């Protein structure tokens, strides 16, 4: 029952992702609950902190998600390592975003490694996706 209510919460509040990605987030939510019994749903403000804070990345240098995606997700970003332009991350500005679970899972794995030098937890991934959807 608990899972069901979480799932319901998603489908109503997070329309900025495709059904496939909403499904992916529901799975993240289940895992988050298993890993942390006090988990009580994803949170955009925690996601914002994950996205905007600076950490020692894979290269041992300060890195943030915003190093490449900038603080305004509706704008284009720039890969800080190569200089290549990155289309906006916000699904509102860029309808292609958050439409493929394969893409989302692949980039979250890579990008968490780059910024945090480890993979993100289910809760962190869900929080940051919730933040991206609201921007």
């Amino acid at each position, binding site marked *: 029952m608990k899972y069901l209510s979480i799932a319901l919460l998603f489908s109503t509040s997070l329309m900025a992702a495709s059904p496939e990605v909403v499904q992916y987030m529901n799975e993240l939510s289940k895992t988050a609950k298993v890993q942390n019994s006090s988990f009580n749903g994803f949170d955009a403000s925690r996601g914002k902190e994950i996205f905007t804070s600076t950490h020692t990345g*894979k*290269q041992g240098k300060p890195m943030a998600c915003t190093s490449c995606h900038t603080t305004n997700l509706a704008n284009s970003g720039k*890969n800080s*390592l*190569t*200089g*290549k332009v990155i289309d906006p991350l916000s699904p509102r500005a860029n309808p292609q975003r958050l439409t493929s679970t*394969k893409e989302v899972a*692949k980039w979250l*794995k*890579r*990008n968490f*490694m*780059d910024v945090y030098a480890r993979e993100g937890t289910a809760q962190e991934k869900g929080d940051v996706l919730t933040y991206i959807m609201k921007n």
Partner: protein
Amino acid sequence: MTKIVNLSIAALLLAGGVYLYADDDKREEHEHHRSTVVAKPLTPQEKATTALYTKECGACHMAYQPQFLPKRSWDKTMKTLDNHFGTDASLDQSDHKSIQNYLASHASKNDQVVDVRGAVALRISETPYFVREHREVTKKMVTQPEVKSFANCNACHTQALKGSYREREIRIPNYGRWED
């Protein structure tokens, strides 16, 4: 600097094997009657693999033409994608396999290419051929923010994405055309 500028795309794509230019030429002559007339059209499968390569290996920088490095270089790159020049570029198993095969089948035939330190070359920009071709390009031209590094081929070679590196297509940011 008196070079033939108007090299064909195909010839340029052999650039990675330029060490064996003589051999390549010979081989080309041999194969001439067999291969010139009918260029086999790509099968849907081959088209899909090319698109996969372009998307995945073109996400952070341009998708380099596989012809610039030999198979053993690409194999090494594919084995170390989780730490690819300091970033994580890992792929799922199925895409990894398709791309590794794609690179292998389009690689330079010169398997002896080593980088300037004598190791299996991971960077095109560290192969002796590349270094020779770019010896007159100054450090400032490369390190300026609009270029960043030699890895950014298409910052200077305006048709690099199409596999064409002719001199008359070169525009170096803040410097312009390359005049001999």
